[in-house]
């Protein structure tokens, strides 16, 4: 029984508490804490002349007001630039509270602490900030002209510029190859902004007891928040603990850290000697958390009569918003993952990461891949259109073949390591998606089209994750890992891995994530990496525990460890079920005791006669306890892949676009829990459809986000999402012990490309932007058929 847990749709262990209102999300904690609220800039770009807090001082319940001037030097420093890169020559990050200048609407200017949130917001409303408005930089075109600067010391508003080029087999560069190609095309693609938009915003709750600081944060990385907080506050690391409680979705935005509030709340808690909590509201999330997507791409491609790409030259303008705390990960991912499942003759990609007076851009599920895939898949469709070929035929002509793995794309990936695909079978996947959607039998009609999109996703990036596994004397198994959970079902899948590795019933396994008190070393949950990196670390830790358990049991049973098995929590001699010892007893024996706290523990005490009097109770090179810790550090990413196809119908009069069918074939190596993987795919596709058809950040020329509410930023409801048909291909990863690849972001990656492909097919009009709204389509029709 226990051996079949891996790969089974095991029901989620998280659900009972989440279904009964017993989850513990950030704002559910700290009922008696003081509340913080923030004065945020109403201007996209302005100099702060003066802040007058006087009018707010009489608000009943007011405890404190802080501006930049009130912060100690260390606390007031610019927030860290998390991922430096040599090409990011002009990286800039914000101050926790604005110093002299604000650079986007929503930038925090003052923090108010009061007895409750209502009072704190009353005080915020009365603080008078005297701004001298400056001309804002909005939109990529305006930014690259460089007439106005977001940062005075960043000429041309360019924070980073990076070129990567891979020559073809003949040694020719992309531009040369394109010039020499029988066919060439050039075009521009426009990709709008969207955002992670988890239903629970960010939040921080800080407690200081005079010596130790405990911080709860709705974060995707508690270990890194801990280190950042300790550094900013000058506290010894062991005096700081950070816990991610139940987190109501992340999708990337919560991997950024430390947010201003993650520094300011703990500092204020220490300064005031009081518990303080801040819960982000939805408007704050729109204007002060992060956005993503947002690129203009200029593409030139050369190809032969079969549609094989001979040269591809892409220039990307990437809108980074006002700051670059997360480095240039998003455009790096775009420019590398653009290549997808294809062998491109020669490839040149160049991007400029550009500042604008808008909310900063950091990864949102897909993290640059949707833009890259949009570019490559639009290119494939245009080639097919140009040559009059079937779109799948052109893709197939360019595929990396199953025999060509490991396949080196010749680029440097987001982890600083070579972009080498580990495994995959793209022709088989294409066959499967064509069959699933019925590609060859599709009946095209006016206003009815079919589209396809392919992608490869580097998942499970390092540097590492760890796992700790402890079997206690009651036979329970306690698993912990440092990375966090935001709905992915880690408590379930990690328990499946541990139960299968140890041979115990899953009911006995419990899992803790994102709590630095339990596990201090981790990176975080992003880049579809948790199952790959923590999953393997936990498996390796379990193998250590198993080995130790068998050693102790072999002693007790006077058997050879290699003859022993563990089944249902019982260590027994293979083929002789009578000779056995429960894992709980092994745990007792592993920890020699002086004091018995119950009957079972008495077996390990000094007069019980179980231990040899001639050896130390804890043998050399052994440790007490049945526990193990191990780490998994991948040499490089493992590459999942997928192909999606959709059928859309467009209304001849209103230009409304309806997705009537959506099919996904997905390969994430070995599946731990197919139910959870499918759920991840469904959710990703829904976010993708949002990005393809509805979601955009509507900044006006003043840098005001005019749709900063759920009334105006259109996230899909159930009525917008079609039934999603899925099929799985499993090409195990040769890079890790469990053979798994990541699945978290998969669903979202190709959707805009697929929908554009299908609309183009239905309308006969080239679709070069995302999202595409009915108004956009209506306008395109008017241009093409005036």
């Amino acid at each position, binding site marked *: 029984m226990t051996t079949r847990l891996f790969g089974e749709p095991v029901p989620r262990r998280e659900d009972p508490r989440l279904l009964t209102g017993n989850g513990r999300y950030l*704002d559910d904690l700290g009922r008696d804490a003081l509340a913080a609220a923030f004065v945020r800039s109403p201007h996209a770009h302005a100099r702060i002349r003066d802040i007058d807090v006087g009018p707010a001082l009489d608000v009943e319940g007011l405890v404190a007001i802080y501006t930049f001037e009130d912060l100690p030097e260390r606390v007031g420093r610019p927030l860290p630039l998390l991922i430096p890169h040599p090409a990011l020559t002009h990286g800039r990050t914000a101050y926790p509270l604005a110093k002299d200048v604000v650079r986007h609407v929503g930038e925090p200017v003052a923090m108010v602490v009061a007895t409750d949130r209502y009072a704190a917001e009353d005080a915020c409303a009365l603080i008078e900030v005297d701004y001298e408005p400056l001309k804002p930089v909005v939109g990529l075109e305006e930014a690259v002209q460089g007439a106005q600067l977001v940062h005075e010391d960043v000429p041309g508003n360019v924070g980073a510029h990076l070129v990567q080029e891979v020559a073809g087999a003949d040694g020719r560069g992309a531009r040369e190859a394109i010039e020499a190609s029988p066919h060439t095309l050039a075009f521009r693609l426009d990709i709008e902004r969207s955002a992670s938009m988890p*239903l629970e915003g960010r939040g921080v709750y800080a407690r200081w007891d005079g010596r130790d600081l405990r911080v709860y944060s709705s974060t995707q990385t508690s270990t890194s928040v801990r280190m950042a907080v300790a550094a900013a506050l000058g506290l010894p690391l062991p005096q700081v603990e950070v816990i991610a409680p139940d987190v109501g979705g992340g999708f990337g935005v919560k991997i950024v850290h430390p947010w201003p509030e993650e520094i300011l709340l703990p500092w204020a808690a220490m300064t005031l000697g009081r518990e303080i909590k801040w819960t982000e509201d939805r408007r704050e999330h729109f204007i002060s958390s992060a956005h993503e997507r947002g690129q203009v791409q200029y593409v030139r491609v050369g190809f032969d009569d079969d549609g094989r790409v001979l040269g591809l030259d892409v220039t990307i303008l990437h809108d980074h918003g006002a700051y670059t705390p997360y480095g240039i990960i998003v455009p790096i991912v775009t420019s590398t993952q653009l290549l997808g499942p294809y062998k491109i003759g020669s490839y040149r990609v160049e991007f400029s990461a550009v500042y604008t007076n808008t909310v900063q851009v950091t990864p949102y599920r897909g993290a640059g891949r949707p833009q890259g895939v949009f570019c490559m898949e639009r290119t494939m469709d245009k080639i097919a259109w140009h040559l009059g070929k079937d779109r799948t035929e052109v893709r197939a002509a360019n595929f990396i073949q199953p025999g060509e793995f490991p396949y080196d794309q010749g680029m440097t990936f987001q982890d600083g390591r070579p972009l080498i695909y580990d495994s995959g079978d793209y022709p088989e996947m294409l066959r499967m998606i064509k069959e699933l959607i019925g590609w060859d039998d599709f009946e095209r009609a006016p206003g009815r089209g079919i589209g396809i999109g392919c992608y490869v996703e580097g998942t499970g990036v390092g540097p590492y994750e760890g796992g700790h596994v402890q079997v206690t004397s009651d036979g329970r198994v306690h698993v912990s890992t440092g990375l966090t959970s935001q709905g992915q*079902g880690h408590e379930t899948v990690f328990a499946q891995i541990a139960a299968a590795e140890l041979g115990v019933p899953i009911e006995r396994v419990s899992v803790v994530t994102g709590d630095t008190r339990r596990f201090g070393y981790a990176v975080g949950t992003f880049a579809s990496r948790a199952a790959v990196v923590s999953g393997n670390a936990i498996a390796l830790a379990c193998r250590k525990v198993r080995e130790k358990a068998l050693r102790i049991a072999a002693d007790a049973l006077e058997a050879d460890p290699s003859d022993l098995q563990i089944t249902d929590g019982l260590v027994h001699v293979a083929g002789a079920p009578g000779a056995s010892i429960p894992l709980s007893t092994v745990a007792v024996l592993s920890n020699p005791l002086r004091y018995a706290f119950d009957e079972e523990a008495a077996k390990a005490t000094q007069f019980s006669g179980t231990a040899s009097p001639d050896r130390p109770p804890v043998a050399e090179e052994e440790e007490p306890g049945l526990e193990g810790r191990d780490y998994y550090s991948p040499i490089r990413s493992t590459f999942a892949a997928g192909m999606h196809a959709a059928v859309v119908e467009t209304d001849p009069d209103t230009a409304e676009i309806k997705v009537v069918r959506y099919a996904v074939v997905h390969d994430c190596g070995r599946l731990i829990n197919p139910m959870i993987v*499918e759920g991840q795919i469904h959710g990703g596709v829904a976010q993708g459809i949002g990005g393809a058809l509805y979601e955009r950040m509507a900044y006006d020329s003043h840098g005001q986000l005019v749709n900063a509410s759920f009334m105006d930023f259109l996230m899909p409801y*159930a009525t917008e999402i079609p039934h999603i048909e899925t099929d799985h291909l499993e090409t195990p990863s040769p890079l890790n012990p469990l053979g798994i690849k990541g699945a978290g972001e998969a669903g979202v990656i190709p959707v805009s490309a697929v929908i554009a492909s299908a609309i183009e097919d239905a309308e006969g009009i080239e679709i070069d932007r995302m999202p595409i709204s009915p108004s956009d389509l209506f306008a395109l029709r008017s241009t093409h058929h005036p």
Partner: protein
Amino acid sequence: MEHEITLVVNGAARRVSVPARRLLSDCLRHDLGLTGTHVGCEHGVCGCCTVLLDGRPVRSCLTFAVTVDGCEITTVEGLAGADGLSPVQRAFAECHGLQCGFCTPGFLCTVTALLRDNPAPTDEEVLEGVSGNLCRCTGYQNIVKAVHRAAELLAEEA
């Protein structure tokens, strides 16, 4: 100025003193400690804060607590019976109708009322019924499946 009100929450009368501007969602969460009701937008769009007010689903973030003095309120904490999870809750678990769980209490309250009024909804009616609740994790497919499954469970147990 504070107002003394009585709310009958999940069958128990609770007296609480609130300012007129206190939102029902804040009153439930912070005054009564019933944190199962979540707040996702505070402008009545996402549906996370949905509770049953005299049996009808309402947005507790758009309701002042003082305006519902004397009313009966059911929150997610009140859905399970003495013998365990309600059929709607069980169906959501069985069909993997939740991931992060933040929107879930609103869906559970909405669906509980939906199936009480219409025990055998069609596909269209289910979509319509949950079309006022946002979920950013599941893509809704398993939520829709869970609603149908809950209808089956309710029918079996009727």
